[in-house]
């Protein structure tokens, strides 16, 4: 496929605010997880909570959007000169030629949870200051980002659980190819809320200790939150940077909340990605896995990697740094891949103590400094929804 160039990006997660802090944590395996201290949640688990989200005040035209998800989005958008890059793109192409395609799984549901606590005891009515459209509705995130930048290109939110913010990269490629826009703001935001913490806990998928992806003793996920944004354009003399050269999407068609045991859907997404990019498995430096640290997920994904890349592929799990950021996981993975391409290192798998001997992977606890050209990024979600992306160093 014709590649797209990533001309600007930013990441805010529990591992750091902005791409420099996240890259440093990625290289050193420094975890941002901490014991769950959310006021509304009483669970024995660790979370990837971003500091400073509550202090963000959305004002003026953005005031109706005030909720944890959009506050986290705003904190992210203030980093790394991303806002300036989007403004320049809007000047260059026109505000109606920049798409806003973003992923989230739960949008601003924390606002609804809070409103339910404040229902009128007599009538059950929600409080009058509750704004459904601008907080909990799925489209809120794209609406917020478009409003903040004055953009009016094609816009939507993709919400396919934990693959959401990976799939928007494929959408950007299609929207640009179809002539609907010249550039796209993509990425995703998901934020901590009672629904996901108690929901994953009900599924018995949450670890009591910080998650340890790919480890023999892994015991489930740690839930995190993050905001990652990317500006995608066609490559040109003025638009240079790392490239999106392939994507793959598939469905397991197997189960709503468990992956296909042999990873057939995941393998199909990986193979499609390589085909679109015109690459062979041997040309990939490593795979930044979805690796949520549940026994079933990591096993299924490892089999998918072997199926599509051959035995013992080099692989990295990064959720020990940030927690599983759900709908933002794809965006986190892409930003980490870009940090690795730019910094010349294969990241360690944070939290890895003893690699699970059942996983035919080459995963390491230490960073490996060396030039990195191509990284596959995986993001898989409930509903058996799979997406893989290939990121390549600037040419």
């Amino acid at each position, binding site marked *: 496929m014709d590649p797209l160039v990533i001309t600007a990006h930013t990441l805010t997660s529990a591992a750091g605010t902005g791409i420099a802090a996240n890259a440093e944590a990625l290289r050193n395996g420094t975890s941002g997880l901490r014991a769950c201290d959310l006021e509304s949640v009483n669970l024995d688990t660790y979370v990837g909570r971003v500091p400073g989200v509550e202090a963000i005040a959305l004002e003026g035209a953005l005031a109706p959007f005030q909720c944890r998800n959009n506050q986290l989005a705003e904190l992210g958008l203030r980093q790394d000169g991303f806002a300036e890059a989007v403004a320049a793109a809007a000047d260059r192409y026109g505000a109606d030629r920049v798409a806003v395609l973003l992923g989230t799984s739960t949008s601003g549901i924390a606002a609804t949870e809070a409103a339910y606590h404040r229902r009128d005891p007599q009538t059950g009515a929600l409080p009058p200051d509750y704004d459904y459209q601008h907080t909990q509705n799925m489209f809120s995130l794209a609406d917020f980002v478009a409003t903040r930048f004055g953009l009016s290109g094609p816009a939507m939110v993709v919400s396919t*659980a934990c693959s959401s913010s990976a799939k928007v990269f494929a959408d950007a490629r299609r929207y640009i190819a179809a002539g609907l826009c010249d550039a796209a703001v993509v990425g995703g935001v998901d934020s901590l809320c009672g629904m996901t913490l108690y929901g994953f806990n009900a599924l018995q998928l949450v670890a009591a200790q910080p998650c340890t992806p790919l480890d023999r003793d892994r015991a489930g996920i740690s839930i995190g939150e993050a905001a990652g944004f990317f500006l995608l354009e066609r490559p040109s003399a003025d638009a240079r940077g790392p490239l999106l050269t392939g994507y793959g999407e598939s469905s397991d068609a197997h189960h709503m909340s468990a992956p296909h045991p042999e990873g057939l859907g995941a393998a199909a997404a990986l193979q499609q990605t390589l085909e679109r990019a015109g690459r062979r498995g041997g040309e990939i430096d490593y795979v930044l896995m979805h690796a949520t640290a549940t026994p079933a997920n990591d096993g299924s994904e490892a089999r998918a990697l072997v199926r599509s890349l051959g035995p013992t592929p080099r692989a990295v799990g990064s959720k020990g740094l940030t927690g599983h950021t759900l709908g933002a996981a794809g965006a986190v993975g892409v930003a980490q891949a870009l940090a690795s391409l730019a910094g010349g290192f294969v990241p360690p798998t944070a939290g890895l103590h003893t690699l699970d001997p059942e996983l035919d992977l080459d995963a390491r606890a230490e960073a490996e400094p060396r030039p990195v050209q191509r990284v596959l990024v995986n993001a898989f979600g*409930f509903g058996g929804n799979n997406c893989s992306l290939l990121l390549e160093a600037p040419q």
Partner: protein
Amino acid sequence: MNTIGLHAVGLLGPGLGDFETARAILAGTAPLAGDAINIPPVRLLPANERRRTTTTIRLALKVAEEATTDSDRSQLRSVFASSSGDMDIIDRICDALTQPEPVVSPVQFHNSVHNAAAGNWSIATRNPAPATAVSGYNATVAAGLLEAATLQQCEGGEVLLTCYDVPSMDTFIRVRPIPHAFAVALRLGPVEGAPWRLQMDLGGAAVADRCATDELEALRASNPAARALPLLEQLARGTAGHVTLDAPLGRSLSIRIEP
């Protein structure tokens, strides 16, 4: 954008049992009578999965099934477009979270994802093709059409677009007044062999078309998925025509329809 083929339509709404029987109502030659709606179980799912479905999933899959009757369901890509997703589950979970010791149902939680219908559809049809789930608030139909049309144009083959929204539950009816369920599915694909051809363009601000009758117009205004009704009216008329829908961020989606 390229012209694409519309191969089949599925429909379910108050007084609208399926597209074929609703044609006369949509064409304005028969009145919309009553607001009865029957959302059947999903025949395509195995019994144990069928028991775990929600009204939202059943609503979406009923029209998806109708629009893919007599076609190969095992390969086509799918786009599931809903403004609000599963409001019933959101209500139950948010209510549970107000309890001192919150207990969330695991099945409700995995069905709470916006792509619950998409996941169930892929399981029901044993279809490994990509599926997606999108929202554009009240312009979700236009967002879904753009997503489906770009998929068809860039990846080829057939694309199933399913737009659906369930009614708001009691707690939400004042902040999000959606009184009735509504769902529509469009099976899009190459123009060859298609009974209708659609030419879509994303335009600037424009006034969206309204329905021809007061009854259908009231329905159109009351559910985000029913914003597709002016398009369905034009299809039912059987003549060439043009429809304008609201697109996200104050834009419009202009659709030229040719039989």
